[in-house]
């Protein structure tokens, strides 16, 4: 059955295929915009053509003449509701709450009509006049405002420091001081963004792809000024998220208001082009990295400064210095992050938000340092492997980076690499081999889950988490099957509905850890009830010690080998169903942690917040080929070895990591949203010009799961890995490009033009 799945190694679960695979291959999986809703009207957004100023006039007469036109919602029509609150909401900009234009592509109206075609036509007939001001597009444009990142966001308290960087750097015999940059990127999940709002009386149901049903329910009810219990957010399947569906955008409340006003359900599917300005994106960043080292390779000083573009009103902080400052055994560390406010929509989380740009800069700099030291780049990392992280002096709960490098090197054949730059060639192709480290914090948050076990061996798991493609539905089911000793095929899992027990936002790769911990807790409560019942006086396993009992094959098994079937065990309880509702809170959580979970504001632990630093690591090795005449770049192969605690399902894990590395290749070579500096407008707003990797770009991709056991990280022993795979790839590619050509590219993506000599 499970063909082509990697064989589980130590501390890994069964590589079962995903629960929902069948639905997906038959077209039966319903994504929010597929859900049938009676009497549906269709909404189309009208967006701003200027990036800064105010809306002077909106001409809507022509639109209103289109047959089927139902209504138009604009500035003023959100009266009586609250503007969004940045945090759970993607931005504090409430586009219809005022006439101010904060960025290009901002929503200025929603047109609703009987049919999609009519709404499209009416929307195309709306014209606007603006009092236009000169916008700032981002770095290097006039009129931006720079503010410190430290303290600007609850997720980024302060710049990290250790020791006396200035002195150590000044004294270092070998050093570099370089600048790096990463571009704006858009998530571009293949599913289009959409909102469907339906009122039944005063009860609102939202169908929208989301990574945060509970948070959205709370924030939306706050905006609409209604009781959270009157809002339900449903998102059974999500067609790719990568962070884009974490924060709730302004559209959700606008569509809800329109539906209420019209007395009809409204569905608004956003065009791919409009998504660029109405959703979030990965902020462009710039970096200055200084590294000083002894001649033997020991780093004595590490300095990392970052500049990040954000919108005018919101302090979205990327802030990857938290991780880069802790990655190696630096003697001293100095970091600083600045935000550059421009006339842009507010950026947001995109697959490993802090690490992708910051670790790229660090790892590219590490490669430069290795060159300066004339050391093998892997050896250079080995020399700087820490026993404790340099900032707080805490141990790592587990750290298998070197094991990852060992396994990856072996599989890749790193020893065949000739160290001299430009020394490897195959006909007209220059060959380069490079490497980089991947790192991602293991986050965890409070989570609730309800589990039912039936006397016939069926189990049911309910949790308001989100199946965004990661396989969490399957993995949560596996956890229940394992703890309850039933077959996986007898477990059903419900997710993606705010009416279910609350789970944290599916972001920061916390879901597997948080959800599995809650499911495990509920299962264990069921076990305890069963164990108690069957071991009581006169019961089938009378006298058996509960501690030695287990569940398996639909039986309760005592330590002495006696067994009782589930049916008989349930009979002793005179029931056919046991239900447990569990609330999991991670170690170190505050007393308000649970309350905050229900309020959609989950408190995160893990990462560097606990007594030990909890990170997952990986090593990525890549080969590039560059054509001597055209400079076309190809990546024939990439090997990544990753260690992430207990691997619940090697099949889904491998798939996540593989997809991640492909993302990394896209980041290295293709992905960039271009911004026109004159009008602060995105240029390449479609999949024709925003290039994501296609099948043929991808050569051989090998994922190695390195066994790692970490009982300290969380009860389930798992580290998230959905955002690990893409972290190291761009720097590994840059390293390989340098090795092939001697050209150091510091600005992503690496373009053909960069390689002209």
């Amino acid at each position, binding site marked *: 059955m499970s*063909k*082509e*799945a990697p064989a589980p190694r130590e501390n890994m679960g069964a590589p079962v*295929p*995903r629960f*929902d*695979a*069948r*639905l*997906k*291959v*038959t*077209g*039966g*999986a319903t*994504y929010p*915009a597929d859900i*049938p809703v009676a009497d549906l009207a269709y909404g189309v957004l009208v967006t701003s053509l200027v990036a800064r100023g105010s809306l002077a006039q909106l001409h809507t007469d022509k639109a209103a003449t289109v047959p089927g036109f139902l209504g138009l919602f604009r500035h003023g029509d959100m009266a009586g509701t609250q503007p969004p609150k940045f945090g759970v909401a993607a931005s504090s900009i409430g586009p219809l709450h005022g006439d101010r234009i904060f960025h290009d592509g901002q929503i200025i109206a929603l047109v609703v009509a009987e*049919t*999609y*075609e009519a709404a499209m036509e009416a929307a*195309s007939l709306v014209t606007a006049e603006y009092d236009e001001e000169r916008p700032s597009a981002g770095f290097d444009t006039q009129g931006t405002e720079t503010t410190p990142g430290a303290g600007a966001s609850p997720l980024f308290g302060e710049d990290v420091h250790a020791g006396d960087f200035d002195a150590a750097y000044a004294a270092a015999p070998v050093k570099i001081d370089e600048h790096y940059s990463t571009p704006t990127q858009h998530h571009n999940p*293949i*599913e289009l963004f959409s909102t469907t709002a339906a009122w039944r009386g005063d009860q609102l149901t939202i169908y929208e792809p989301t990574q945060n049903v509970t948070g959205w329910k709370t924030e939306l009810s706050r905006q609409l000024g209604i009781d959270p219990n009157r809002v339900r957010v449903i998102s059974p399947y999500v*067609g*790719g*998220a*990568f962070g884009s569906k974490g924060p709730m955008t302004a559209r959700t409340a606008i569509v809800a208001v329109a539906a209420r006003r019209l007395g009809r359900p409204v569905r608004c*599917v956003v065009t*791919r082009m409009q998504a660029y300005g109405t959703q979030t994106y990965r902020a462009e960043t710039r970096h200055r990295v200084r590294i000083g080292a002894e001649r033997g390779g020991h780093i004595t000083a590490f300095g990392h400064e970052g500049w990040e573009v954000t919108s005018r009103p919101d302090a979205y902080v990327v802030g990857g210095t938290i991780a880069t400052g802790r990655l190696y055994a630096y003697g001293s560390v100095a970091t600083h992050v600045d935000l550059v406010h421009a006339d842009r929509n507010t950026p947001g989380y995109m697959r490993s938000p802090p690490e992708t740009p910051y670790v790229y800069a660090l790892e590219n700099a590490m490669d430069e340092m290795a060159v300066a030291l004339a050391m093998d780049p892997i050896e250079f990392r080995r020399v700087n492997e820490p026993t404790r992280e340099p900032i707080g002096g805490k141990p790592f709960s587990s750290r298998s980076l070197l094991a990852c490098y060992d396994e990856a090197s072996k599989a890749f054949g790193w020893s065949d690499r000739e160290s001299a730059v430009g020394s490897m060639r195959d*006909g*007209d192709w220059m060959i380069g081999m490079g490497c980089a480290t991947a790192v991602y914090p293991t986050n965890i948050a409070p989570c609730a889950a309800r589990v039912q076990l039936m006397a016939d061996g069926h189990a049911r798991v309910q949790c308001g988490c989100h199946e*965004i*493609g990661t*396989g969490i539905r399957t993995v949560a089911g596996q956890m229940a099957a394992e703890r309850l000793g039933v077959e996986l095929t007898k477990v059903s899992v419900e997710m993606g509905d705010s009416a279910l027990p609350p789970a944290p936002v599916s972001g920061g790769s916390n879901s597997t850890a948080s959800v599995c911990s809650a499911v495990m807790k509920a299962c264990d409560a069921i076990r305890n009830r069963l164990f108690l019942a069957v071991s009581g006086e006169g019961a089938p396993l009378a006298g058996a010690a509960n501690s030695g009992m287990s569940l398996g094959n639909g039986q309760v098994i005592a330590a002495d080998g006696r067994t009782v079937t589930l049916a008989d065990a349930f009979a002793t309880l005179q029931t056919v169903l046991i239900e447990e509702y569990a609330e999991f809170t991670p170690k170190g959580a505050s007393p308000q942690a649970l309350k905050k979970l229900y309020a959609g504001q989950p408190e995160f632990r893990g990462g560097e917040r606990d007594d030990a630093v909890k990170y997952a690591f990986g090593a990525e090795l890549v080969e590039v*080929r560059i054509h001597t*005449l*055209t400079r*076309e770049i190809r990546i*024939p*192969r990439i090997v990544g070895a990753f260690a992430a605690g207990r691997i619940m399902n090697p099949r889904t894990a491998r*798939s*996540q990591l*593989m*997809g991640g590395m*492909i993302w990394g290749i896209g980041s290295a070579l*293709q992905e960039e949203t271009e911004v026109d500096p004159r009008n602060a407008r995105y240029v390449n707003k*479609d*999949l*024709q010009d925003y*290039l994501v990797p*296609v*099948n*043929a770009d*991808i050569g*051989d991709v090998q994922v190695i799961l390195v066994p790692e056991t970490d009982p300290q990280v969380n009860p389930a022993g798992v580290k998230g890995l959905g955002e690990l795979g893409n972290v190291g790839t761009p720097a590994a590619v840059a390293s390989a490009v340098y090795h092939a050509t001697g050209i150091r590219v510091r600005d992503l993506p690496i*373009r*053909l*033009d960069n390689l*002209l000599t």
Partner: protein
Amino acid sequence: MSSAPIRNEIRFLLNGREVTVRDVAPDATLLDWLRLDRSMRGTKEGCAEGDCGACTVLVGKLTAGGLVYESVNACIRFLGSLDGCHVVTIEHVQPVGGDLHPVQKAMIDFHGSQCGFCTPGFVMSLYGLWMKDANPSDATIEKALQGNLCRCTGYEAIMRAARAISDYGKGASDPLAVERAAVIEKLTKLRDGARVEVGSGKARLVVPADVDDFAAVLEAEPKATIVAGSTDVGLWVTKHMRDISPVVFIGHLEGLRRISEKDGVITIGAGVTYTEAFDLLSQRIPALGELINRIGGEQVRNMGTIGGNIANGSPIGDTPPPFIALGATLTLRKGAERRTIPLEEFFIAYGKQDRQPGEFVEAVHVPVPAKDSRFAVYKISKRRDEDITAALGAFHLTLAADGTVAQIRIAYGGMAATPKRAAAVEAVLTGKPWTEVTVEAALEAYAQDFTPLTDMRASAEYRMLAARNLLRRFFAETQGGSEPIQVSRHQAA
């Protein structure tokens, strides 16, 4: 005037049923119709621009060779163009009364989906492939999947699934195999030789009965938008909201779908798709076969026509430069009148072609290069597949007995406002010995021929350097030194 009877409705088969649509806008897409009118939501929308393949369905049509199914992008396929076809969606893949199709089983076992949004599209593309070739090579699979994007899986798992399909049974209960005879019969019945006219005034579409009828329709309505494969026009609608009415659909016209060779000249009817042209072109002019494989994805090649590529007049259309280098001519027709012009004269300026009102492109005539001449075409793009050209160069060289250049024709795309010949470079080379010295000396003349632009695909400097390097490359290849540039990744690896 043509005497074809007139019908006022579109008729086609949808999965197992015949449907008749009377009320259809000329710019209504198959995808919107499926999802919104028919509530069949297994087919997904990911871009509405032909880029992602989430909307892939199969369209079966009767051809000279029988009933043929091809994958197409429902998002840019107009409903009106489906008259007389069989539309097959993801809802129709499971065997009747059976479990899953081998394609679906393989996709499950090899973990070919994560979020699953792209999956129906991949299943349909693989289904289309499997019908033609149950044991495809890697290169064939890659070609079939070029037009499908997946943002989650990284493709490897999908490739493995594709390789394994035939391990999951022969698919004797495959619905399209089971129904084949019945479908042929039904489609044959639907062919009534009528002209279809739906709508009136501006919102009007016409499906002419035959080529003569088309000529008549166009003469009567010279402003009508001609739609062949709709891979360009589809985007005018879905992306640029252009009003294209009235529309004349021509993709079905047998009279324009012929490709044949006579006296060393290949004549390609304007309605011949890339897929249909592939066999003959790749056999006779292999470099063109290679090039076609890098145009769009499979769905776009199944729909898009060479005539449309030329008529569209884009400076980055891929077929005009090599055709110009080969000395192709173009036949235009208005009513019963025809004229034939050198292809390069068709392109006057950006967005302007030598086409009179009421006139249409009937065919392009491409001379097969002589045995003793050399021909090559190189496409440079950022992404290996399904990417628009940054620069494209085509070279056609004939040497005299003494090793001097008797004739060289060089044409580029992406270097000017139209596909353009490098006349100054040609002049420098002609009559000179074909040597490295001559080639190097000719590079300067590029500045006279081209002043390329900088855009997000490439900078002006890069384009200029790449254009020059392509000549160097061509020279090197004629010396027997290097292998061709467009090696596949397997060759590169």
